[in-house]
């Protein structure tokens, strides 16, 4: 029996070794550098309390991630609801509307938003052409641009867990409630919405932790003026070569994410999320 299982254990090894040597090890090194450079101790962490740039980055990141999460949840809920209520045929199109943006390169999406939002972009041109505004609006290279792009990125991630929770709701419950004279709004607010809450919570955790560490979209749409944590880390490491400082922030980021996830781990099921659209 033991000998037979040895073969199975051997099959686990390639992935496990790859992950340990080429994933876990470099990340542990990041964590350790934060305590050892420039000198041994908690010096880097003390700066959370004293350094303005660290504090500003943390609060900007928390604010943007929070706003993004709320907006992505509201918009994602509308889509997930429509998918759940759609007929079998229509549902396929709806899901395509979610999955295609999910897998389109994040760079392509950020680029598309630059095209639309910049000063000579399509939206400003259109508004000026119609005479609605005289001067172009500042739609990008600020927090507004970052949030527009991030919400666009996060909505599909918000939809999937909500969708999977909504699909478990028996549609006959709503029909029954209607039959007993409840209005559409009552059916939604008293029957459907409470039942969909676990999905909403899972979606909230997921979009929030993804937003916290996001690099590409804030970097492109923020134009280097509004720094979120990920871009701030990259500036510390690549431009200022302050490893201790940068890795300290990386550690704070990881710990925040893991703690959030740990607290909600009973609700969030990562495997279900990517597991195959049903």
């Amino acid at each position, binding site marked *: 029996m033991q000998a037979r299982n040895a*073969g199975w254990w051997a*099959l686990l090894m390639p992935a496990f070794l790859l*992950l340990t040597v080429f994933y876990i090890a470099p990340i542990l090194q990041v964590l350790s550098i934060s305590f050892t450079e420039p000198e041994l101790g908690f010096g880097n962490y003390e700066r959370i309390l004293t350094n303005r740039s660290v504090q500003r980055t943390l609060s900007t990141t928390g604010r943007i991630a929070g706003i993004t999460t709320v907006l992505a949840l509201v918009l994602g809920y509308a889509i997930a609801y429509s998918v759940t209520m759609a007929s079998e045929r229509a549902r396929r199109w709806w899901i395509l509307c979610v999955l295609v943006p999910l897998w*389109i390169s994040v760079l392509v999406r950020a680029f598309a938003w630059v095209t639309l939002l910049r000063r000579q972009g*399509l939206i400003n041109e259109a508004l000026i052409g119609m005479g609605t505004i005289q001067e172009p609006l500042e739609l990008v290279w600020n927090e507004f641009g970052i949030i527009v792009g991030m919400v666009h990125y996060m909505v599909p991630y918000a939809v999937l867990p909500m969708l999977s929770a909504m699909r478990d709701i028996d549609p006959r419950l709503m029909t029954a409630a209607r039959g007993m004279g409840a209005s559409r709004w009552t059916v939604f607010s008293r029957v459907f919405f409470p039942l969909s809450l676990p999905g909403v919570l899972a979606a909230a955790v997921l979009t929030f932790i993804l937003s916290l560490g996001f690099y590409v979209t804030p970097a492109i749409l923020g134009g280097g003026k509004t720094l979120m944590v990920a871009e701030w880390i990259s500036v510390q490491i690549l431009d200022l070569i302050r490893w201790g400082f940068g890795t300290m922030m990386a550690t704070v980021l990881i710990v925040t994410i893991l703690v959030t996830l740990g607290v909600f781990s009973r609700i969030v099921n990562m495997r279900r999320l990517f*597991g195959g659209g049903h």
Partner: protein
Amino acid sequence: MEGAYKPGWFARSTGLIVALYLVLPILIVLPVSMTDQRFLSLPHESLSLQYYRNLFASPEWFASIAQSFWIALGATVLAVVSGTLFAIAAWRLDRRLVNLMRALMLLPLIVPSIVYAIGLYRYFRWWDLLDRIAGVIIAHGVTGIPYVVITVSTALAAFDPRLEQAARGMGANLSQLLRWVILPRIMPGILSGAIFAFIHSWDELVIVLFIASRDVFTLPRRIWDGINENVDPTMAAVAVLLVFFTVLLLLADLAVRKKRDG
């Protein structure tokens, strides 16, 4: 469907508007890529394919596309082989320790790539893997493993374990069991995983920004430079090709799933 419940006009129109918000901004790159102007804009007088000609005539873009393709292929092989074997063994053993290992495999989906990227930047210097194609393949392969583990585990959930016992009973050894009994049944799951691992590597930017410099210049890195330096409509042409390519891969995945389910 029995007991169908139809949503009201408000819910339906809100859903539709959000769907448009998701899709329209991506589609806008198509007309922009065919502009007759010299800057990013909608076509004014006529449609033009000049930026597609630019793109195909440019050795830099072409080299980046080729490099990204080979890297993605290598990373996919790495992720699919190790991830599939892992998922099968984890499914078969099903112990607490193994489930812990499986949770560990999902880490790359949760830990932000910036953290991994700065770690690798330092770590790969020891291994002399900075600015090497092999280094990028390893990094993308390892971070692609979770996609394969997830899709293959899902496929295995539908696999009848008695088939394995029967094969064992008839004297099949481990490799025969894998090759003739298990792998053929979970092929659609493996293919799905391969598609996602490929897209993951093909689109990956953050790690590459840190571990590549002169020699490795993948497509996402060239797009990144393009966006930050000179935004010209050639970028829109690249974006259109990428969107087209991704949709194609997703349709392939849908076809694979349909075959599995149907």
